[in-house]
């Protein structure tokens, strides 16, 4: 993601490196602290599930829609989740119209794996008629304002949207009924991203920190503290100890974010 190394970028990099050496960040956060998180569950009424999320100034919306379709041949009795991300030109001067580029594809796949690999969704309960008809769950990510760390913002929005999602019950003949039930979710996996700057791990990088990063690592954990997905980002390298440190930070922070999500949903339902 590092763009042209122009003089200003160079000065910025020096400045942030120096801050980090003094154990500081531009916005005065601790190294293992996320920016402020604001969640509006059920933001899009037309979607079966949705969430609007602000992570600092970063703003994203995730919508969940259902369809019924054919299962994959090798898992005939399981529903399918599919995740897409659009880098709308609205969200950043660098984003362009057109089919998803490699950054959008990586984002969608990292968010997807963070949820899929935790087995949070009981895909067997998404089977309507074995081998013939299953639920297809579309998780669509829309970026409104890219101010850094899209992965965590979208991860939070995606799992919140799934938690709010209702799906129609099908009768024995495979026809949809009026009855709606929640999506069968049994975990709340959380995805946390850190960048290495001047040999320190900074959680939840803001845009400027992203621009000067040496390397990036993402760790997804579940409610039981298991690691369910990891991804080192483009460029740079990590020592094994740094990876294990990132895992610990992610587990800790995952707990906090899990609570924030639960509370936001509770508030929305009661309010």
């Amino acid at each position, binding site marked *: 993601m590092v763009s042209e190394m122009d003089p200003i970028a160079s000065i910025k990099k020096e400045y942030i490196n120096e801050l980090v050496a003094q154990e500081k960040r531009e916005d005065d956060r601790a190294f293992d602290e996320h920016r402020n998180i604001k969640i509006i569950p059920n933001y899009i009424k*037309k979607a079966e599930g949705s969430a609007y999320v602000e992570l600092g100034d970063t703003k994203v919306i995730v919508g969940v829609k259902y*369809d019924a379709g054919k299962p994959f041949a090798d898992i005939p009795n399981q529903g399918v989740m599919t995740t897409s991300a659009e880098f709308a030109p609205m969200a950043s001067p660098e984003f362009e119209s057109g089919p998803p580029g490699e950054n959008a594809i990586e984002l969608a796949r990292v968010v997807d794996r963070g949820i899929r690999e935790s087995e949070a969704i009981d895909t067997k309960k998404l089977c309507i008629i074995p081998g013939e008809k299953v639920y297809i769950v579309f998780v669509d990510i829309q970026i409104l304002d890219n*101010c850094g760390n899209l992965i965590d913002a979208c991860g939070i929005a995606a799992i919140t949207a799934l938690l709010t999602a209702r799906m129609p019950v099908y009768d024995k003949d495979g026809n949809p009924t009026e009855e709606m039930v929640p999506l069968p979710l049994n975990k709340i996996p959380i995805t946390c991203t850190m960048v290495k700057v001047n040999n320190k791990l900074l959680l939840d990088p803001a845009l400027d920190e992203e621009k000067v990063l040496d390397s990036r690592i993402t760790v997804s954990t579940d409610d039981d503290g298991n690691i369910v997905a990891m991804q080192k980002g483009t460029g740079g390298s990590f020592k094994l100890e740094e990876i294990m440190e990132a895992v610990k930070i992610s587990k800790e922070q995952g707990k906090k974010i899990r609570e924030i999500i639960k509370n936001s949903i509770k508030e929305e339902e009661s309010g």
Partner: protein
Amino acid sequence: MKRGDGRKKDELRNVRMEVGVLKRADGSAYVEWGNNKVFASVYGPREVIPRFLARNDRAILRCKYNMTPFSVEDRKRPGPDRRSVEIGKVTAGALEPAVILETYPNSMINVNIEVMQADAGTRCAGITAATLALVDAGIPMRDLVSACAAGKANDGIILDLSKEEDNKGQADIPMAIMPRSEEVTLLQMDGILTEDELEEALKLAVGGCKSIYELQKNALMAKYGE
């Protein structure tokens, strides 16, 4: 005549506007119009890419209109369809007359409209939001552009058709005007109308646009007013 949602024939749905809602964009706005939720952002003036599109006497204005996959009843495939391309084009045409493009020769102004939830009237909501975003971006304007549709449903000429009225409706006329001169910059129509009905509807739409104009001014005052 009684409308499904109890509105009078010349009554708008609830409309809420906010200016400057995004940080990265040079200008931005959010419009909630009935159940429509629409964001607009503006980037520019900036370098023209590809270069051969540049004009040495004025900026070019490009507009992208997009609906998210979850904005409509049945999931929409991501990416532009023919409807979106056409709306992007007529939206650019609706905004252009109000923007003083001569200020920035050889440059480009990009307007992006993203529909998060669609409920009849998204192009009018988009133009309304885009105008606010242009002002927020500091682009010099001759006038605002204010948009509103009129149409015919249940044999009556009415303002600002709801989704239900649009689906069963007999005609729909999205319109945009520059309110001070009442010059029309967007006009589309489909359905079947007599000449008299059309004239009535156009006049009704002008009134709707003017109500939107007031709301736009309020939203700008809320951000930029003293």
